[in-house]
């Protein structure tokens, strides 16, 4: 969810549901592919789509352009190292190319390629979800779900209210941590101590979360939330021709990539 006022750019003007429905089959396809071409093509296509279609802050653009290859390289290396050499087909490309060697363990080109394929698939799924993620605000999504998909508004708007709890809990957790430090209690090290420490933080956090949720619920009810089966929508979320075109283009692009791959 991107914060602040809706930014210009054609992605932001699309219905959030279109931005989810378009890339969704591609995400499914990426999960079931094993080659390098399909995820690479979809990853690149969605990156271009985001950069062209969403007006982003400079640091987001930088993170996308620089961060994507770095993350792919890191993931590819770690997955490659974890690949069981016994399960690599000796005829696979690169199986004889040794990139690194420790004792009788060999990191081969084939292992790296397997890791790269896994890395590309993960990053491609993330990039496809960012098409909607970087161009949609929470309220927009809720409006589309409620108005176009007929999700009950009680669920949609309650979820939106609950989202506001998250930063509050983050801050509260910090205060509780400081308070516990002041008590001069250390549970020691190791996993058992970690569990005890976490439980010690969870109880006050939960107690205050429940109290806060009750108060918010009372305040919402006092303002007629849920009084009627529907509520006034000041902003209408429309499903336009452009949305259908976007979805069809996405699907057509996917078919083209699959055929080419």
């Amino acid at each position, binding site marked *: 969810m991107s914060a602040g*006022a809706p930014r210009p750019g054609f992605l932001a003007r699309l219905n959030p549901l279109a931005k989810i429905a378009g890339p969704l089959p591609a995400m499914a396809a990426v999960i079931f592919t094993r080659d390098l071409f399909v995820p690479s093509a979809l990853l690149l296509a969605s990156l271009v789509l985001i950069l062209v279609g969403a007006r982003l802050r400079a640091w987001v653009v930088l993170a996308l352009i620089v961060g994507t290859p770095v993350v792919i390289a890191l993931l590819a290396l770690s997955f490659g190292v974890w690949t069981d050499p016994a399960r690599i087909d000796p005829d696979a490309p690169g199986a004889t190319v040794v990139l690194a060697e420790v004792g009788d363990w060999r990191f081969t080109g084939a292992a790296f390629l397997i890791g790269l394929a896994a890395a590309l698939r993960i990053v491609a799924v993330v990039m496809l979800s960012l098409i909607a993620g970087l161009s949609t605000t929470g*309220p927009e999504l809720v409006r589309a779900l409620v108005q176009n998909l007929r999700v009950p508004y009680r669920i949609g708007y309650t979820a939106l209210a609950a989202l506001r709890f998250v930063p*509050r809990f983050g801050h509260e957790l910090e205060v509780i941590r400081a308070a516990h430090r002041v008590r001069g209690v*250390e549970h020691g090290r190791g996993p058992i101590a970690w569990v005890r420490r976490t439980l010690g933080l969870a109880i006050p956090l939960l107690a205050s979360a429940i109290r806060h949720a009750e108060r918010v619920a009372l305040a919402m009810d006092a303002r007629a939330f849920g009084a009627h089966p529907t509520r006034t929508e000041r902003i209408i979320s429309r499903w336009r021709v452009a949305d259908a075109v976007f979805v069809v283009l996405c699907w057509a692009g996917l078919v083209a990539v699959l055929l080419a791959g």
Partner: protein
Amino acid sequence: MTSAEPSVPPLVALDDVRITYEGAGAPTPDGITLDVHPGEVVLVLGPSGCGKSTLTLALNGLVPHDVPARIEGTVRVAGLDTSERPVGVLSSHVAMVFQDPDAQVVTGRVLDEVAFGPENQLVPAGEVLARAERALKLVGLWERRDDDPDRLSGGGRQRLAIACALAMASPVLVLDEPTANLDPAGIDEVYAVLRELAAERDHAIVLVEHNLDAAVDLVDRVVVLDRAGRLVADGPADELLRSRADELAELGVWLPVSTLAAMRLRDAGVVLDPLPLTPAELAAALDARAELPPPAEEHDRAPAPAPASATTPAVRVRGLSVRRGGRRGPVVVHDVDLDVPPGDFLAIVGANGAGKTSLLQAIAGVLPAPTGTVDVLGLDPARADARERSRRIGFVFQNPEHQFLAASVAEELDVGLRGHSLTAAERHEVVERMLRRFGLDALRAQHPFLLSGGQKRRLSVGTALVAGAPVLALDEPTFGQDRERAAELLDMLRSVNDEGTTVIVVTHDLQLVADHATRTAVMADGRLLGVGPTAEVLAGPLIDQAGLRHPPLARATRGLARHPAWHGVTRLAQLPRGRADA
């Protein structure tokens, strides 16, 4: 019983209402009969636990529909029985503002927030916007309609909550302690809005408020509940507060400070008739007298700490600057020098964001301070380990629950003794002593989270002192509490202080400061403007310089034309005393 025309039907009519919470023995409130008429401003008073808040929840049907409680008798809103109608329907007749401004925000934008209620009422979109605009303009937030509510101050968020209630277009507005979580500036903002609403007479207002000094000049009618939740008085505000002040004080109802001052003067033979309700009335009544007895010498207080040169200070701060959020964070405390002698009761006051909490946290080692800038009894708290520190200074956070670690009260105290090289028998003895000292003996096996608010607070002070710390630091200990609990806490701090503990407290409640602190430090914009004996500080220019408002008694006395000797009178204890308690 009320001044309204008998022909106008009441907006809200309560008939013999009793509300029993699930699991509670007796109903509170108990047998309330009361009508609210158009344009009336009704103040509901009563001691803690008398069911005032519960009563407000019954006015729009949250009791019994949302809150598990049994209701007897009938509550009618615009003629509708609340037990038969859902809250959603009743909310277009009665709008609510709650105590906690943070727990009323649903959306991420001020305008959307105000629109939320009317949207739920299925009001057409154009009318929603018109209502939102009107409401936001009335509370002065129209310019900020595109902001995230989180970016408003506490007072701003509470004004937003009032705008949200106004946008419901209900003829009745119910406010349950709307200023309990606000600093003085926020309280003023909210009351400026309420005063305007009260003057317009478009709404009936039902107000629960402990801070009578802020509320007294805008209410028409006062309804008083006793400790058991029974209706004991209902009548015009002025007349009732003036004629039955003693009875109300006896009930545990907090009266305006000016009235309390006049009652104390009466005991000393200075009879002000009628009793004043506001600082202005008190000032006028005092100036109307040709002569006044001299203010009392304060000999009941702990002996003033010896001059700083004679003793080593308990806390010594030199050139302290503090940044929030790491090395790049903003500087929140600038170059502060401060000495706190042993046995002192020091209050640190200042407007929001003045850096008082950061200063206190740096003193107690909660925030890291640069090496050598803070010394607590020979220890640098930022560099000592937690055990070592807990033997010198105890810190109490605003919410006591944040500090609880154990599953029972006794264990909670014991936790603080771990690793202090004591035998089991010695530890047991210390825990027993603390349980008795803080009146928690009977509750030793109780889970700390199941204690009442006041008990939690006592336990948190106990845990801060259990390791033998001679210095106690408290951050806004009275925030969000009613006056009765706040007074109870201050009395406890007073007695801990009398036993020799140095107490440092950060607060924005200047009348509490005036009545309890020996010395006061004033902060603004991260700097220490000055520190001195409380009476001198409150009578001097620092309070104005820091952008604070003088406490009610000081406001009454500092402008007296005929009695310059009284200009320094800021606390009740300085008033001439009667023979009975001399």
